């Protein structure tokens, strides 16, 4: 199950260009398609009109214009942010734990967010509860990871295995508390589960709220590609090469958790993106984290925009929960990984 040892050097540029093109294509498709039919030309002109210093007449009705700029555009951008963050966080976790099945929710981020959202929905009345969900999810995700980390440190000597076990314990514990709280007010079950199934219907306000965390986390992760490559040869060897193993691990874990919390805050729990995308990237472009991290960021964004497009159109004007679509693609992929355990791409 080990990640490949120092992979062959490949040029980053071609796969990067391909990813950018894929992402751009997915975004354009996402912006042009929706439950409300709008003319392609009008949409493109209205988007152009939205740019600074550009003024063109899109010919869209005011209602259509506001749908495009207040609903569809933030939704596509939310998918970009969430997909990118989850995938790059997943890649970071996989690097730190040297485990291909590590995902962004491994250390209790999901369970912590789930508990916090449940508390908000159950104990805050009406609209206040709904409005508090993003902040609660963010705080809960960060809290869950910190709890797992504190527990792992106190129980072991900083080994990753202890940390994973602490994460499992925290996850079960917080999920149990969540279930208990839910029992207190069973009529709110539907709202909690609607959140768990994931929702990309974002707004500019929410995007703005997570932007600083997302940017810091993504940049921090991208800067650690080379160090994660060194880490993949083993702790002692990496230390021998002059790498401060504990510090690298801590920074990557913190950045990946921050990225996860930002994603969870705006979208609920969306499974599999964080596991699936880094593996696809590895198979197509090689195992070096200098490749895997940036390509996961772009690929995750493109994947989630495309998945959301499916969720929005398959049964339009009804929608599928985004978590159903990603899991539907993700689960068979899991099987494929298990069948071909030997990592490819060296």
């Amino acid at each position: 199950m080990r990640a490949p040892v120092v992979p062959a050097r490949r040029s980053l540029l071609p796969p990067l260009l391909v990813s950018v093109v894929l992402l751009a294509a997915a975004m354009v498709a996402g912006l042009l398609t929706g439950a409300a039919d709008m003319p392609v030309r009008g949409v493109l002109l209205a988007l152009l009109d939205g740019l600074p210093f550009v003024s063109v007449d899109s010919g869209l009705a005011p209602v259509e214009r506001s749908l495009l700029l207040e609903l569809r555009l933030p939704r596509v951008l939310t998918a970009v942010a969430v997909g990118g963050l989850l995938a790059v966080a997943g890649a970071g976790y996989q690097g730190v734990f040297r485990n291909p099945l590590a995902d962004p929710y491994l250390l209790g981020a999901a369970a912590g967010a789930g508990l916090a959202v449940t508390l908000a929905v159950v104990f805050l009345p009406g609209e206040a509860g709904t409005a508090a969900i993003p902040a609660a999810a963010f705080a809960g995700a960060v809290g869950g990871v910190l709890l797992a980390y504190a527990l792992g440190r106190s129980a072991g000597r900083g080994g990753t295995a202890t940390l994973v076990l602490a994460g499992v314990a925290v996850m079960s514990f917080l999920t149990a508390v969540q279930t208990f709280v839910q029992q207190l007010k069973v009529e709110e079950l539907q709202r909690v589960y609607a959140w768990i199934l994931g929702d990309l219907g974002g707004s500019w306000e929410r995007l703005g709220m997570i932007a600083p965390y997302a940017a810091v986390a993504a940049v921090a992760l991208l800067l650690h590609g080379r160090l994660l490559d060194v880490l993949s040869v083993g702790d002692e060897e990496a230390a021998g090469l002059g790498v401060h193993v504990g510090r690298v691990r801590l920074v990557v874990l913190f950045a990946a958790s921050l990225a996860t919390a930002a994603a969870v805050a705006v979208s609920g729990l969306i499974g599999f993106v964080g596991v699936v995308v880094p593996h696809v990237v590895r198979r197509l472009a090689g195992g070096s984290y200098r490749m895997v991290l940036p390509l996961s960021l772009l690929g995750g964004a493109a994947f989630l925009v495309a998945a959301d497009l499916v969720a929005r159109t398959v049964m339009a004007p009804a929608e599928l929960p985004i978590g159903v679509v990603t899991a539907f693609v993700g689960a068979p992929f899991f099987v494929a990984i298990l069948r071909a355990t030997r990592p490819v791409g060296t």
Partner: protein
Amino acid sequence: MRPVRLALASALLGILGLAACGQAQDPAPSAPSSASASSAASAFPVTVEAGNGQVTIERRPERIVSLSPTATETLFAIGAGPQVVAVDERSNHPPEAPKTSLSGFKPNVEAIVEYKPDLVVIASDIDDIAAKLSKVNVPVLVEPSATDFDDAYDQILDLGTATGNADRARRLVDEMRRELDRLAAEAPKEKRLSYYHELDVTPYSVTSNTFIGRVYGLFGLVNIADRAPDAAGGYPRLSAEFIAKADPDLIFLATTKCCGQNRDTLAKRPGWSGLSAIKNDRVINLDDDIASRWGPRVVDLARTVSDAVRKAAG
């Protein structure tokens, strides 16, 4: 673990979606007259056809436990209130119903048996509760969420027969039928007004094939959720973009109690501020409970809809 939770969540969403409906507008009667009570008592044993098949009740029940808010409302509306000893935690109407901590979602046989019931009514046979209670010789009526008016009337008549209040139940059904017919006849149907019913802020809605959808159907309203494909089910999760583009004439909110929604919160949703229903004050706040039950208070719901439709058409 996550896939399991997904499955559970979808199942729960289904249940809650269905469980969303009805209550009685007239207050419970003081007590059944002695004449009707004695004549009813002589009618036993009775057999009714419930959701769990034919159920035979040997004697007139005197210790009824209702784990269904809709059944609770019906029991009190048909004069069976004095026979009810316990109702579940969600049975919040009428106020005099003996509310307990019993749950209709997670029924606990031992907790139910504590009340020494001689009849248990529940909306959904969760955890095989009917079979378990039969083992201790407690008859159970499963009265699942109604899909149409006839189904709802049937359930009221069932409960009337099963509790020895058949006459009252029949009168109630006749009254309901008459009132709904009257409201429907008065409706300005030629306007073909469109509407959106919000069941959940996600937003989930309802199609015309659901019980609540049929209530709106009485008034010749056009449901925007009907444009969702059949595969999306009776309770489709609609696209916010679609709702805004469809720009319904009327918006009915069954999310007022659960989620504090109203015209102002809708106006703050991205892209929705220009909706004509919001601008023209055609957002109607429903009582979440009434809009999610299928008992006698469906008449109250119909009156609310009727008023809104006439105001909008006028």
